[in-house]
């Protein structure tokens, strides 16, 4: 890995500030949706999930400076590995819980 990934030599303070603002906005939206009941239940749930996903991307892009061109390949591989595990955990959970839900219906 090159030294360019060290803090200070990478993207400047601006990138962190943009990231911070985006992260705060993406946190505020779900809370606002729930607190002020701005949308129906399904729409709210979907919006929260989307906000969470975008939040992840924001963190990766602005705080960890992941970039498909400049980031070394092994870091990207590690990221895909993490993605795979999250897919297994979240996908498995959805499968299991929906299966149980279906079987518990009267």
């Amino acid at each position, binding site marked *: 890995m090159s030294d360019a990934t060290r803090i200070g030599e990478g993207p400047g303070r601006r990138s962190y500030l943009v990231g911070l603002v985006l992260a705060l906005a993406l946190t505020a939206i779900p809370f606002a949706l729930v607190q002020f009941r701005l949308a129906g239940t399904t729409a709210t749930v979907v919006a929260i999930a989307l906000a969470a996903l975008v939040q992840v991307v924001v963190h990766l892009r602005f705080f960890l400076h992941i970039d498909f061109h400049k980031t070394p390949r092994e870091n990207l591989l590690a990221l895909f590995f993490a993605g795979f*595990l999250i897919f297994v*955990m979240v996908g*498995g959970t959805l499968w*299991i819980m929906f*299966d149980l839900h279906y079987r518990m219906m009267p």
Partner: protein
Amino acid sequence: MFGRLTIEALPLYSAIAMGGALIVVFGTLAVMAAITWMRAWGYLWREWFTSVDHKRIGAMYVILALIMLVRGFIDAIMMRTQQAIAVNSDGYLPPDHFDQIFSSHGTIMIFFMAMPFLTGLINLVMPQQIGARDVAFPYINAMSLWLTASGAALVMVSLVIGKFSTAGWTAYPPYSGIDYSPYVGVDYWVWAVLLSGIGSTLSGINFLVTIIRKRAPGMKLMFMPLFTWTTLCTSVLMAFAFPAVTVVGVLLELDRVAGMHFFTSGDGGNMMNFANLLWIWGHPEVYILILPAFGIYSHTVSTFSGRKLFGYTSLVWATCAIAILSFTVWLHHFFTMGSSANVNSAFGIATMIIAVPTGVKVYDWLFTLYRGRIRFTVPMLYTIAFIVTFVIGGVTGVLLAFPPADYLMHNSTFLVAHFHNMLIPGALFGYFAGLNYWFPKMFGFRLDERWGKRSFWCWVVGFYLAFMPLYMLGFMGMPRRMEHYDVAAWQPYLVVAFLGAVLILVGLTFTIVQIVVSVRRRAELRDPTGDPWNGRTLEWATASPPAPYNFAVIPTVTGRDAFWTMKADGTAWRRPARYEDILIPRNSAFGPLIGAIAFVLGFAAVWHMWWLVALSAVLAAIVVIIRSSNDDTDRLLPAAEVERIETAWLAEVAAAPRPVDEPARGVPSAALPGAAT
């Protein structure tokens, strides 16, 4: 001010609970008095508690693990005694107390015995095996240690102030919810698990970065010693699985104190998701416990048969396969929750597949032994006992992976026998083997062999006596966690199991005797060369105990078994042309401080002293910020000092007698009879 903490919290309700509390209080006081009497506080604080040296941190982890092993075992033998007598009677433990005991036994053995034990051994050995001077983040390492210790302290304090959880080590809702468990027990469980869980996540990340970034020049991934490989996989599991238990603990606590409904059947809550989330962590956890032990066995088996490890590549791939597969099987812990046949069979099949790479490993170890010149040292004895006993546990595991069979065995003592069969011969014996094998690297002298062997025999025979009857009891229909029962036919088996536990008690006592005897005979048992067993990997290239920097000159690696090659070429123990200055991290009170704050935070949260929770959270943040803004964290060890340390050691190496029962130093394995690989 004190939340719900009142004088009622003292265990005045039962003589036995009071006794336990008094033992904890007086034990602590006695240890503190002894330290004061020896005037050792200053030494301990400067040299140990504030140390950020990975070897010292490792040793402290192991000491914590041994203390908690004693506590966990006392719990175990209390349960065994109760079940041996409680047929058609109440025995001597009231149900509420019995339930606390199995909960604390399970929690302690997993989180505060096994986890610190393996983390300690990894800390001690892994950086040396890869030719590094330290882990990647020494301060975080200290913080992990003290977070784990603060979790352990919370469990111990629950003996004296309040009660521990009665919800088992898995704390399933709805029973662990506020309606059924209104008192502090479950909160103690949650906070102990949270604190130590954060420590473990950080350790996992730390080890991962260390292995990726700090290997000596030339050490390719496929040159890494097997223990380093298993550490790598275990660290991946720690880093990815532990967040799940942290999340599940936080959600349970929110249900309990903030009136939320993640796991209660109100407002869309679902208690079944608790089991799901818990085991997303829980199954990888059992591999976190066992993979390092597999690594240890891979070293003892090859060192003590004087042969290179058979099937290195297949062992590496088997380890990786196990690590990944371990994320895909968690549902086998709740087959009976009512999933459809499709779901159950998918997870059942995935579980059975894990047996394949594990079987590969067993054959590799057997082929390493085959035609080797076996030295029956204590680590080797544990290894052999492991191979035989572990296969039994593996077979019963494959049986349980079959959902229809699991429907019969679920929650029976058959299951208890199965997982102890994996955890004791699999994990714990591995840690004991590792302790005997690497002890010289911790303190500079070997452990006494005679007491080690006595202890070994008690542990092994005791294990069979204590747990084989439980398999049979499982077939006879005995459920786990029984405080008393009315089936007289079970009692003879439970009496045998009790006798087994007594034998294990003798074994545990002998383990302690072994350590005491070794400390007294430390001059005789000293390891002057740093290579007491004719080892093969780089941790034996350092002194025992290693200098703070491990390697005066970072070795260059050209293949597997790097130290063996160095001995064969005559490049081991070689004086370099010139020594250089070495930077080492300075000791710091940061670790113990964070640990203390975390303990106060946890304790305050358990007792609902919210002002104190807020205060300690702010304090923790301040300490972390101060610490991270400090850039002056290293001290320079001048070349002259390095030279002095190294010269003294090399002189000792030159003067050391060659061990008689070992092959001559520097003989490659192929030159030994019957050692062709």
